[in-house]
């Protein structure tokens, strides 16, 4: 008999924007996030369960805990129950049920979530036809609350511990675009309680346990260990970079001062349990991932001596390294596969990055030497105020990725190219923006250092 009830309540914070899609679109956006009845973002329990189950796929207890209707052996329903993750509003109130009298200020912010434009760039650096789309994302920093309950026996406490640990791991990501910088979560609060139904006191407490997130818990918060850096099964690359001069990760259009400006997005910060919104400069992971992917393809082709002028260079997901590391999908792909490279979006405050430098450009008429009519435009660019950037790239060690020497080396070459200043990032790179130099570390060991020119 299953006489033990394990219950844990998590408070999680979005370290990067979230995109748990609802499959719907609006007049202005191609893809909308999952929202609750009050119009606030939420994460469905099925999304959480799916990610969790996938993480334990190799364990022998997986189908017993998560249920398995298919196989005859463990053909039972799930023992684990996950609630939907509901958003935390001001004063630790959680968006649950239909709320009345929500502050219009708050709803206005969440009715108009940030929208990310994506454009698919070819290996030649230009936009592909029909390659533009946009999606809504949930602000970075939004907090959610969800609950997990396991029906089990005393022997299951190890499983319970590993479930809780998994949620806290840095690779526990939710929603789509987890390889594009979205969906990284941080556990900032955890309540954990075990009820033994054979003990009368526990039984009564369990029966009286309120599932509402707005009722204060009858048990205390447990301390959180400092988030562990790279977990087993992942190779961790770190790039310590500083820009040569300016760089721009552009929004695609400008403001009253210039025709083009860096991407800025609002993020949520909970101060004294009240939501506050701050504008920060964003470096989207997707723009860095694209650059690395194209360069990896180049190195992979080079190592295999497949040259483009001989009509041999495989590009995109047809390339061995790109397909394995960054995944492949689409109509023509017979076996779609998710990528193994995880990069986060990076956010910088006003103190770290300034976006006030304006460049004016004008095209010169080669014949008259004067300015071409209508060819004047201006752009804002970013410059770094602090010491430098620290970018983390996680690569999941799957069967193929990183076991293949050519793939590993091609990928590492691409990373080194960034640190060497040979692979500019962001927009307007042909104008000299986006050149970075610095150090590449692999699992904490220095792989390349621009200053000493040492390469390992």
């Amino acid at each position, binding site marked *: 008999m299953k006489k033990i009830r394990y219950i844990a309540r998590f408070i999680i914070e979005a370290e990067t924007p979230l995109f748990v899609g609802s499959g719907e679109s609006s007049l*202005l956006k191609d893809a909308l996030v999952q929202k609750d009845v009050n119009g606030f973002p939420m994460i469905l329990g099925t999304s959480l369960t799916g990610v969790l189950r996938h993480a334990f796929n190799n364990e022998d207890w997986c189908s017993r805990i998560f249920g398995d209707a298919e196989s005859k052996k463990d053909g039972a329903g799930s023992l684990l129950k996950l609630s939907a993750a509901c958003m935390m509003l001001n004063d630790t109130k959680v968006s649950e049920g239909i709320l009345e009298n929500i502050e219009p200020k708050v709803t206005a912010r969440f009715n108009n979530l940030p929208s990310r434009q994506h454009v698919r760039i070819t290996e030649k650096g230009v936009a592909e036809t029909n390659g533009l789309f946009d999606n809504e994302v949930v602000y970075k920093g939004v907090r959610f609350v969800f609950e997990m309950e396991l029906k089990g026996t005393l022997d299951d406490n190890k499983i319970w511990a590993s479930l809780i640990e998994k949620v806290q791991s840095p690779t526990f990501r939710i929603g789509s675009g987890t390889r594009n910088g979205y969906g990284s979560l941080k556990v900032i609060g955890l309540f954990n309680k075990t009820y033994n139904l054979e003990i009368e006191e526990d039984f009564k407490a369990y029966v009286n346990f309120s599932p509402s997130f707005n009722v204060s818990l009858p048990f205390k918060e447990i301390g959180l260990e400092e988030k562990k850096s790279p977990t087993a099964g992942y190779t961790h690359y770190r790039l310590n970079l500083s820009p040569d001069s300016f760089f721009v990760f552009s929004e*695609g*259009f400008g403001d009253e001062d210039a025709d083009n400006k860096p991407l800025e997005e609002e993020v949520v910060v909970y101060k004294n349990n009240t939501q506050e919104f701050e504008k920060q400069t964003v470096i989207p992971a997707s723009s860095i991932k694209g650059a690395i992917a194209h360069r990896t393809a180049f190195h992979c082709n080079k190592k295999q001596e497949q040259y483009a002028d001989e009509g041999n260079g495989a590009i995109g997901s047809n390339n061995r390294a790109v397909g394995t590391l960054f995944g492949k999908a689409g109509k023509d792909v017979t076996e779609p596969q998710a990528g193994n490279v995880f990069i986060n979006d990076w956010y910088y405050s006003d103190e770290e990055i300034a976006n006030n430098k304006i460049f004016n450009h004008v095209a010169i008429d080669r014949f008259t030497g004067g300015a071409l*009519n209508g060819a004047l435009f201006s752009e804002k660019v970013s410059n770094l105020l602090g010491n430098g950037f620290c970018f983390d790239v996680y690569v999941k060690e799957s069967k193929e990725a990183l076991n293949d020497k050519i793939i590993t080396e091609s990928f590492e070459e691409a990373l080194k190219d960034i640190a060497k200043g040979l692979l500019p990032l962001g927009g307007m790179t042909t104008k000299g923006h986006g050149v970075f130099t610095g150090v590449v570390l692999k699992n904490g060991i220095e792989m390349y250092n621009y200053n000493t020119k040492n390469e390992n």
Partner: protein
Amino acid sequence: MKEEFYKCTLLSDVVLNSSLATEGNMSTLDYIPGSNFLGIVAGKMYSKLKPEEAFDVFHSGLVSFGDATISSNESIGYAMPSSLFMDKLNNEIGTDTSKVYLHHLLNKNNHPLRETDQTRLQLKQQRAGYVFSDGKTLKSIKKNFAIKSAQDRKTRNSKDGAMFGFESLGKGQEFIFSVCFKDDKYMKVVSDSLTGIQRLGKSKNAEFGQVQIQRIANPATISSFKNENYVLVYAQSNLCFNNEFGQSTFEPTEEQLGISSGKINWEKSQVRTYSYSSWNFKRNTTNSQRDCILKGSVFYVENRVLENTSNQVGLHQAEGFGRILYNPEFLKEGVEKPMAGFEFKQEANNALEKSSSELVKDSKTVLGKFLKQQQALKKFDLAISESIQNEIYSNSREIQSLKKISSSQWGGIRAYATKAKDMDALNNQLFNKESGYLTHGVAYEKYWDKNLNNFKNVFDKNKDLGTVFIAKFAAEMAKENKRS
């Protein structure tokens, strides 16, 4: 004999399977068989009555519990008579153009012809639906469908082979039935145990089967017409007969139909039949098979004028079988034969529930407010889409000349519109004479000099739809530019 009428209001959906539940895809009956009401009374009274009294009430036919049929404003619904025929291509009953023909009046010489080419009309028998005394008809009864699955306690899964689809009669509908007493003695007993909130049908321990039964005075019933040469016997409920040897039969004699002389003309009759086995709850098995004549069937008895005769015939009268009507009004001849003289009208209203839009209108609950708000949002989105559609595909000269503007210009407008706080701010950003996006620069000279007013007109016309309209309009115009 006394007849008492009852109204049965469905408080929840009611499942009345039309066949044994040994197979999937169950369909429900569209009436409530009288046996259900007999069952309600029997459940309460059987053990309290003396054996001979119990036999009188429940088995002898001294008390007969009629089938409950759909009602509309306390008027009884009658199963569509099988003698009604209509043009196959124009068989919506009660419309201006459709005509109802009576089978027994049809012959070789008067077969209705098509107006256009004078060929014979292909006629179709009317089978579904109900007719009310005021001529209104009801095509179908509101039914719902639900899938139910049993849960396996051990595995916490759906139990294998335990998923059922239940069709049910929708809640809120009203049915009327009558109970006939040949002996006044039992009236109070029956009436007391029938009225109130009761449960009937299948799965009544779960969500189905709650009904409220009330006595009503005199529901509107159909009257009969006088006729010299023949009598039409209409089966108001299902009929069941045995022949002289005790075998079940589909061919009742004139006597069995309650008429002492005359002859049934089978050619002019319309009889439909079915067989079923009733379920005995006590023995938990089926009774022997019954061969029945379906309600709505019509017998044509020649050489006979109508006398006062019994309107209950055949077997199983206690359960509501055997109710008949002689010459009901809806089988009356019209002036122009073979048309029916009864005026059939379209759809009666049996929906008691308010429509969803009405509910939203007068709801003051939190949920009501929320739904109302959602409805408004949806409407607003639709309004925007419709206006964009109208604008872009209009042939006006304004729009046609706007389509020549480059898609990058539209992209710029879209970018401003998605970011602008409101229409006034956007107006300023786009049209401000000094700093507006559209009022200076090369693009102004190239495109907007002549077109600015055209766009401003569209802008002003749709001001109420907000910046979303402009953003989407610009996005669509950019595509139009590429297409042309």
